[in-house]
């Protein structure tokens, strides 16, 4: 029965390893760039390996938390150190762990100053992200949620581009605004639960039991949703993202797009909607509209960007719209699609940002117009570029397809009965969302066209000093991501099975009304 | 209009006058004196109540106020001296280097 004792330890280890890494870097490598890199890479790799073990041992047929640890922490407030894996977070945990070593390796040569601090920040960020995913206690979750801000603030602000300070402040201030209101909602939620049930607890499982009148649910959901929607980001709360992406160093963009944005959708899935199901259902039309607007809006803007990072940034907005759409469909297939789309976007956007970073390291320009014909110049690079472009477009056999396909299918599956009942909005929205598929192809292929094809041109390239194609390190990073892209595109079943129970429980949580009987609703 | 009310209003007026003095007078020493006036106003009401109640507590507080007021002046005067040393002026409006 060693597994039962080992399990929780393993998850704790996965969570805390980055902190060990931080300690190691601070102790051993304060002035040793190479060692700092090595430590970070090693820690991340071990973490990924352990996360893989978790994934393999995760029992898809068991409901409830697995590998859970619960320790009383702030007993006075009913806060406990409660972490665990369930279908909601298992894939995201693996994704986070997977991107960890990739981020470190990707930044291997491009980060040249303050290297140890950089890796400390990346490790801290990794810890916070992992924590936010595995936390099963609202207080703990909020802690991790906010803790992500600081390292990201520094990563963008210290190693970013020319307007990095503006961008990073915008990022933090934007995000913090949402968080502040969420904090108010958290306090109110827990407080009202205590008043109604006498129990002071932050555990998700307990909070899922709370009964709140619709009006209260609405306000609380509004606060949560604001915070999550900023993180996702959903139009019109997105303007921080392009700036943050553009100014962030490659590693920052990778983390941002790869994991951080998923926090928003994860938050909706794990907290926002299940905590306030009645409000969630009441506001589905609005949120769904916003999701679809995000899809189209992001795509349209990606279409006219001249900065290559901005294209991907806006594409992220578009892609995460599908996630929201899937989640809001409340259809199993849509929810599952949303989860896959989260992971897929994590991988694909990470790949694209890495690719952009690699070319930026060589040419120091992000202007699309300054490039051309890279396919002739850097064939291997171009192959990878094409793969990730197509995955972003959602071409079948890539992960992007799995996510988009299932999410859209969910939206449609939900919309059709509504249409038969005379409510055409979901159907219209789902149909409009499908146009995102076209727009997606338009902006990504515009990117690829200018970038890869035509006459060869690139800053800092001359026939005497041609640009070098990808190094072995770069190839392996992208190779790993490519494998993930196709694995999730061709064989999503394994992953889907792990999340199926969670998707079902999400579905039943959100579709079950939880307003107190006989209450007309009192505004707080 | 009896005695107590009058005394209390007088006390309040002295207190307010003291504060007004701090607001309107520019001479640092005058300001200090106005502070004393405020305390005197307070003392009056304390004594009045103490007497009215036949209770020593108020009077004792008055005594403490004496002590404190004295100590404050003793501390304030050197500070004013120091101020004057730098600007050769008692005008408090000239001491507004710290602002913003």
């Amino acid at each position, binding site marked *: 029965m060693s597994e039962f004792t080992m399990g929780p330890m393993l998850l704790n280890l996965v969570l805390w390893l980055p902190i060990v890494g931080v300690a190691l870097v601070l102790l051993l490598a304060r002035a040793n760039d190479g060692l700092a890199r090595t430590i970070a890479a090693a820690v991340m790799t071990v973490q990924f390996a352990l996360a893989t073990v978790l994934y393999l041992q995760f029992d898809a047929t068991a409901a409830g938390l697995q590998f859970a640890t619960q320790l009383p922490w702030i007993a006075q407030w009913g806060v406990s150190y409660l972490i665990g894996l369930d279908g909601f977070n298992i894939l995201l945990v693996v994704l986070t762990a997977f991107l960890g070593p990739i981020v470190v390796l990707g930044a291997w040569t491009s980060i040249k100053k303050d290297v140890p601090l950089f890796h400390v920040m990346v490790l801290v960020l990794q810890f916070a992200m992992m924590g936010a995913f595995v936390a099963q206690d609202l207080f703990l979750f909020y802690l991790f949620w906010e803790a992500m801000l600081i390292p990201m603030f520094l990563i963008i602000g210290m190693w970013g581009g020319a307007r990095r300070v503006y961008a990073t402040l915008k990022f933090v201030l934007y995000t913090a605004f949402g968080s502040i209101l969420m904090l108010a909602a958290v306090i109110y939620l827990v407080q009202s639960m205590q008043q109604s049930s006498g129990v002071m607890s932050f555990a998700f499982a307990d909070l899922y039991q709370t009964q709140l009148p619709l009006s209260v649910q609405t306000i609380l959901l509004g606060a949560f949703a604001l915070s999550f929607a900023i993180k996702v980001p959903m139009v019109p709360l*997105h303007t921080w993202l392009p700036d943050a992406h553009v100014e962030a160093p490659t590693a920052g963009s990778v983390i941002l797009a790869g994991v951080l944005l998923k926090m928003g959708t994860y938050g909706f899935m794990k907290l926002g909607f299940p905590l306030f199901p009645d409000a969630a259902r009441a506001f589905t039309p609005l949120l769904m509209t916003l999701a679809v607007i995000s899809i189209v809006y992001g795509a*349209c*803007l990606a279409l006219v960007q001249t900065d290559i990072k901005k294209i991907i940034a806006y594409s992220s907005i578009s892609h995460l719209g599908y996630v929201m759409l899937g989640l809001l469909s409340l259809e199993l297939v849509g929810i599952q699609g949303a989860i896959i789309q989260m992971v897929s976007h994590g991988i694909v956007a990470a790949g694209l940002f890495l690719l952009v970073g690699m070319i930026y390291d060589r040419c120091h320009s992000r202007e699309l117009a300054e490039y051309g014909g890279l396919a002739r110049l850097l064939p291997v690079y171009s192959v990878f570029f094409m793969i990730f472009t197509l995955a972003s477009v959602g071409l*079948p056999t890539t992960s992007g397809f799995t996510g988009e396909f299932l999410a859209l299918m969910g939206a449609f599956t939900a919309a059709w009965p509504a249409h038969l009942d005379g409510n055409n909005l979901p159907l219209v929205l789902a149909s409009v969302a499908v146009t995102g598929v076209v727009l997606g192809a338009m902006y990504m292929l515009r990117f690829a066209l200018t970038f890869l094809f035509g006459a060869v041109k690139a800053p800092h390239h001359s026939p005497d000093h041609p640009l070098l194609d990808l190094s072995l390190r770069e190839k392996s990073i992208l190779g790993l991501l490519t494998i993930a892209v196709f694995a999730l595109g061709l064989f999503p079943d394994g992953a889907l099975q792990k999340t199926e129970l969670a998707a079902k429980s999400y579905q039943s949580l959100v579709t079950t009304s939880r307003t107190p009987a006989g209450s007309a609703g009192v505004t707080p | 209009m009896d005695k107590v009310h009058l005394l209390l209003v007088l006390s309040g007026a002295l207190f307010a006058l003291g504060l007004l003095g701090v607001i309107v007078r520019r001479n640092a020493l005058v300001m200090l004196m106005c502070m004393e006036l405020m305390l005197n106003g307070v003392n009056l009401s304390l004594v009045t109540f103490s007497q009215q109640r036949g209770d020593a507590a108020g009077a004792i507080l008055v005594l403490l106020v004496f002590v404190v007021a004295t100590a404050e002046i003793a501390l304030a005067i050197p500070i004013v001296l120091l101020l004057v040393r730098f600007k050769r002026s008692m005008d408090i409006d000239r001491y507004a280097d710290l602002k*913003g």
Partner: protein
Amino acid sequence: MPHTLALIALLPLVGFLFNGFFATALGRHRANERAAGIIGSAFPIAAFALTIKAFLDLQAGGFAPIVEPLYRWALIGTSSFEIAFYFDRLSAIMTLVVTGVGSVIHIYSTGYMHGDKSFGRFFAYLNLFLFFMLLLVLGRSMLVLFVGWEGVGLASYLLIGFWFDDLTNAKAGRKAFITNRIGDAGFLLGMFLLYRAFGTLDMDTINSAFLSGTGAALLVPASLVGLLLFVGATGKSAQIPLYVWLPDAMAGPTPVSALIHAATMVTAGVYLTARMSGIYMMAPEASQVIAIVGVLTAFFAATVALVQTDIKKVLAYSTVSQLGFMFLALGVGAYGVAIFHVVTHAFFKACLFLGAGSVIHALGGEQDIRKMGGLRSKIPLTFWTFAIATAAIAGIPGLAGFFSKDEILWYAFASAKGGAPWLWGMAALTALMTAFYMFRLLWLTFMGASRMSHEVEHHVHESPISMTGVLMLLALLSAGGGYIAIPHFLEAQIPLPPIVESLEHYEHTLLYVSIVLAFAGLGLAVFMFGGPASRPEGIKQAMLPIHRLLSGKYFVDELYERVIVKPLAWFSEVVLLRGSDKMLLDGSLNGLASLAQRTAGLLGRAQTGSLHLYALLVMVGIVGALLWSWRHV
């Protein structure tokens, strides 16, 4: 062999991976070119061989469909998405065509692409295309079909832009992909509706459900589904309004045009419609639309083809036109006939394209027919094969095209499932134009006097055996392909529509009419282009506005540019980016930020350093607080 079907599809994939990884990596060494060519061709040929085996298996099983599950892609709730292959009469025909024509075109390409610096890459893409095309035709589930559907789009994109150093080629590829995507969006919607109704995407299940009219089928209207799927088909099969990509797709190497943009990929829409005939049989409105779109496409594309001067463009519009014929057949319920035309078209159009390729090859890249002429004697093999194929497409009796086209015309006229005389009229007129522009092409290219420059003329040479051999094979099939009675072969699976009884006796009359039309086209072309050059010029001058309209392709590209592309860019750039993102959203945020800054400045100025003020604040505060406290009295 348990996984024959999977193997058929996967063999080209292996070829792709091999060529992709090794041939590209090893560079453009001559020996490698050889290896790449052999590998690239071997896998399709092997696939073809396996297909024949599979066909024999099918036959041995009395043509009962073979279902071959590979693995489960996803299980969500109770609905399972299986990756499974399905082999019946329809897929058998398609697979044979794809692997067969595909193989020969691979062989042809070894000659055609000889010396190209990206030889290996070319074969990799070609193999990739075959893989996806085979998924498309072999898939049991619409999901697999869709994978192939989009996959062939990808391969087409890559191959059109194969010579990407010239940006116009790459742009043509992009155009193809995006136009196809528009269709795919419709396809997706249709698929979603079907999933909603049945919880599965297996096409056999869906078809039979529709045919039997079970409960689930009533949930979604067949017409809507049919139309949505047809939107997909218009994209892939270049029908109005989404045909615009196909002419541009000629930017790709000619074997690509032959294989993808003539013989196989563009017929995927036809295949899809035939495959989902269960739906369309229940959806007369949708079928009506298909027939009309088909015939209109056929007609308009043919008119454009009349005046094109690029050898490949003529063939491209001809392809669009022929695809229109196929959809006409589908629209009137003659699914088997459409497939029949797919097959014959594959033969003669592949032959034509490859012949054109041979011409271009011989002329060192020249594609303008005004600068050709008199090639008959210089490259006779090419000429003869080209001529046979031209005759076939023109509907000269006895050749392949004659049979299939005639059946289409007949069903357009007489089918009880939507046939109408006016459909026949349009189609017959189109047939006339087809004969005319094809013979025009033949005459301008091969007959008459040479209009080539001396230098070009000097270098003209017949193509190597790898190319001419293939041409001869395809010419043979173009000639004899009509004798394969595909509609009847398929009838067991997809019945042909009944004929309106009152019209039955017109059959022979119409047959003669179409024979007459074919020869009329031939005659007209010979009359116009066999004589002095002033003759066509005169007609051109007489009908200048029409000529301009036709040679401008009805200015549809320009229209789309003005109505869709430009407004979209304007909307994105001006309204969304500048108006909404920068001005409204960022503007209000920056406004708030500067408001905070200004307030901060104000508060800083309030802190004047004056002790008087501070004391005043205290006093005001006290007064205010005391007054406020009375509020509760």
